[in-house]
């Protein structure tokens, strides 16, 4: 065995250029694998965070019938006494905030915006005193100020503001159906612009104080949802039954963010599958490269092979010798690939790639606004390293077998 290892290693030095080129191809494959994986990991990690921070919270309490009717944003399928529930949660150490989601039309006047217009909006009424304990909007304020209790004011997402031409101090009108079916027009002054990293939100966000909505829409203190913040590390689904326990008798249901974000999670899963295909292709290319290299290496040494077989070296040992040689190329490629991959990861993790030019106008599902940042994934680096060696080794099997099928006199006669 020791001889076989020395032999394989020395053979690697025989065609240095070819060894390096093949190892280089493997290295590029491994680097791509590590890099793409880090980028996806980062995108998913950040997407999940941005989903929880700006869309779903960790969990949400809803009227039993709300979720299946959520498209209509029904104000009557509400939580009639949200403060009582929030107090109960608070007693159990759970942070929560109430909200109202309102469907309506945004009316833009020609004085303010140059031309008259209207478009559908979803207005989110928040409790300015507690919303930031659950969500993270205050941190995204880029202009103006945050909302105060009970004022006819609104916050707007920066892309939304850009799209309609709204500025701080602009006035907009929201036409909405109040609780009971009457129409109400609410005049609101834009007091702050939020640049929310979640593109879905930043494109559509219009936020008003809870009390304002309560007053104009005759909610009588009711909320449509209570959002709950759990620790980022918590297994949300495991904690739900205890929370549901607190709600018994109130016709309320608690849902985890995973249930609410099912569409996103399915999409992320599909993307992972798609990139899996790309990674598979990268490995196929590396495999073809090494198989070709080994084929050349073996067929240049057919006479040597004939000599070794004459002297009684078994097929198994010859196979091991060539597979070790391929493993050596794989090892070299894996080492180079992992180093390159780590360098690429440093870049994608610390600098990131700015995709905002795409994300601004296109929804690709990820809840990331512009800069894609990667995340370290040591598991992938280890897997890529060993996969590089393993695939190289296995791929050498076929060309070796082909050479071993030749009879020995033909090997010895080979030029």
């Amino acid at each position, binding site marked *: 065995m020791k*001889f076989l290892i020395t*032999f394989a290693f020395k053979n690697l030095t025989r065609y240095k250029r070819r060894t390096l080129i093949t190892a280089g191809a493997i290295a590029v494959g491994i680097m791509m694998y590590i890099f793409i994986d880090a980028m996806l990991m980062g995108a998913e990690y950040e997407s999940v965070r941005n989903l929880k921070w700006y869309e779903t919270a960790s969990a949400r309490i809803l009227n039993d019938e709300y979720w299946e009717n959520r498209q209509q944003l029904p104000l009557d399928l509400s939580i009639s006494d949200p403060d009582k529930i929030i107090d109960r949660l608070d007693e159990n150490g759970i942070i929560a905030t109430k909200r109202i989601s309102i469907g309506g039309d945004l009316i833009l006047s020609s004085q303010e915006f140059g031309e008259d217009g209207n478009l559908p909006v979803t207005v989110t009424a928040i409790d300015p005193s507690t919303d930031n304990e659950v969500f993270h909007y205050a941190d995204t304020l880029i202009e103006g100020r945050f909302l105060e209790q009970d004022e006819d004011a609104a916050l707007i997402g920066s892309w939304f503001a850009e799209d309609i031409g709204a500025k701080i101090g602009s006035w907009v009108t929201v036409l909405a159906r109040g609780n009971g079916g009457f129409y109400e027009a609410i005049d609101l002054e834009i007091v702050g612009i939020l640049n929310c990293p979640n593109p879905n939100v930043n494109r559509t966000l219009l936020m008003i104080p809870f009390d304002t909505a309560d007053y104009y829409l005759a909610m009588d203190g009711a909320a449509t949802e209570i959002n709950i913040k759990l620790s980022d590390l918590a297994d949300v689904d495991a904690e739900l039954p205890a929370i549901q326990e607190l709600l018994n008798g109130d016709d309320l249901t608690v849902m985890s963010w995973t249930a609410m974000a099912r569409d996103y999670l399915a999409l992320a899963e599909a993307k992972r599958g798609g990139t899996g295909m790309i990674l598979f292709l990268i490995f196929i290319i590396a495999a073809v490269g090494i198989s070709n290299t080994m084929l050349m290496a073996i067929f240049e040494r057919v006479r040597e092979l004939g000599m070794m077989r004459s*002297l*009684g070296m*078994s097929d198994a040992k010859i196979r091991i010798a060539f597979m070790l040689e391929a493993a050596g190329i794989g090892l070299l490629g894996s080492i180079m690939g992992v180093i390159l991959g780590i360098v690429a990861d440093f870049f994608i993790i610390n600098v990131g790639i700015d995709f905002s030019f795409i994300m601004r106008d296109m929804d690709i599902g990820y809840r990331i606004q512009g800069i894609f940042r990667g995340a370290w994934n040591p598991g992938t680096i280890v897997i890529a390293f060993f996969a590089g060696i393993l695939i190289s080794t296995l791929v050498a099997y076929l060309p070796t077998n082909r050479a071993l099928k030749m009879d020995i006199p033909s090997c010895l006669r080979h030029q």
Partner: protein
Amino acid sequence: MIKIENVIRDYHAGETVVHALRGVSLDIDQGEFISIAGPSGSGKTTLLNLIGCIDALDGGEIEIKGEKVSTMGKKDKTNFRRINLGFIFQTYNLIPVLTAYENVSFVLSLLDIPEDEVKKRTMDLLKEVGLEGMEHRRPSRLSGGQQQRVAIARALIKNPDIVLADEPTANLDSKTGEDILKLMKQMNKKHNTTFVFSTHDKMVMDYADRLVLLHDGQIMSDERRA
């Protein structure tokens, strides 16, 4: 030692059949220094390959050390060669990335011989074939004659009963070729190893203790000279 009985070997090349050996019979004793001579195409290589258990018989039988070659399977043949047979080739067939020492010692590593014994035997034998001081040279830094000396050491290192050499001097000038033959003969006498070598060179035939002339796959003459 080696009993060759009415051996037939046909090669099929498309429609045509080449009768490379047409009933060759020959007995070779332990310690003989025998030359298979004949013009190109007469069947020398074919005969050596059959004795060397690297080709298959189409008829007849070869018995080496009491074992019938025709009944051996592929693995048996490999094992048999590993233990009993040494080969010397016209083109030396050394491994270019290995040193002279490694080219010889690897044969012993196939036989699971302990490392210190491998070292001693290899160094001693390289000295014996006149390569003292060149053990760590690669083939590219050895002359043709020196490379063939490495090959002789490689064939002899495991103390085989039989060494088969197919035109061992054909790639060498006559002076070097003679030196190689002298070395082979010296080894033959010292270790009592049977040497079977082929040639089409008159000078080489003169070194043989026994000369078998082959023509068109048949033995024309078989003469003992010593």
